[in-house]
């Protein structure tokens, strides 16, 4: 995954906020996913399509995390969202 790729939620993904946490419905598998904390923050940022770099920069500024850890975790997280049909990745 490249950091200049644009990430956006897939149209039709259903999301519900409960007590500050986000629950998502995979429209294909019909499975639920929960996002809290940093995951919720990333999802909120994705509501405006932007590059992975922009998301990385925003999270790095917002949370006390080392760049290397954030880079690895962010890629893993975005890949998981993609695998579960919750986001699309554009070149």
């Amino acid at each position: 995954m490249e950091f200049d790729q644009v990430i956006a939620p897939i149209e039709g993904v259903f999301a519900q906020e409960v007590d500050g946490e986000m629950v998502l419905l995979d429209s294909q598998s019909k499975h639920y996913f929960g996002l809290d904390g940093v995951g919720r923050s990333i999802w909120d940022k994705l509501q405006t399509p932007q590059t992975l770099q922009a998301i990385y920069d925003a999270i790095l500024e917002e949370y006390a995390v080392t760049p290397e850890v954030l880079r690895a975790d962010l890629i893993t997280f975005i890949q998981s969202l993609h695998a579960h049909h919750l986001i699309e990745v554009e070149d």
Partner: protein
Amino acid sequence: MVLFGYEIVFGGEVGVSDPSLPQIPLHEVAHLEGVPLRTPWLMEGRYPIRYYSQTPFVADCPPCRWALEVRGVVTLIWDASCASISYLRGERFEPSLLEYWVCHTFFPLVLALEERYHILHVGAVAVGGQAVLFLAPSFGGKSTLVGEFLRQGHALLSDDTLAVSPRSGGFDAVASYPFHRPYRKSQTLGERVANSVTTPLPITALYALELTPPKRPVTLTPLEGIEKFTVLAQSHFVAFESMRTRQFEMVGKMAQTLPLYRLGIPKEMQRLAEVYTTVRESLAGLE
């Protein structure tokens, strides 16, 4: 019998309880017709069942005609064009089994698929003019706790399934059928309950039951966020794929609106009164 705000007259019943309620005709047929699609055999608890339908089950467009066969017992057919139930006898048919499968399984499915209500697998009682719901899997203590509330003088809404309908600012509970079955004899509705609710009541709180060892204290823990959503999502009576999106939205709104607690219940019948008191005190705190 009045169930979920409708009247269905079973054999042996004379007249209707309440002519103001919408009537669902029930009649016997000799053949199963008009439902060419069929599923493989599935298990509903210990009972093999299968579905038939006129058209595939898809979101927002249930088949006009579909059926549920309980192997060897009965096949129940719903015809949406005339809102009626017909049935075909199996070799082990008995009138009591017809009543059981219509009330316990088939009519709740009809209501869910027709999107008239959301159907939850919960016990429910009336407390102070409002509905209190108990969530748990089968054998998780719902009927036992409902029984304690009945003994304490509260009215029954549900022992097993409950209809829920959105209302301004919350949700209404619509009672299922006036029977309570604390000891699980199979394919029976249980004992008829005289003190049962007949009008919709606003839901005030939900309790997810967790059985604990007998000597543990009774515990009450508010649930929030994803955990709250997950517990509520597990309480749906049926989870056809075509219904998932609508159920997701419904569960989200319930989670946003209603308090849900995890209620730790020591597995000791003599301490049920203590559990009852804990629930009553928590409800008083919501007022």
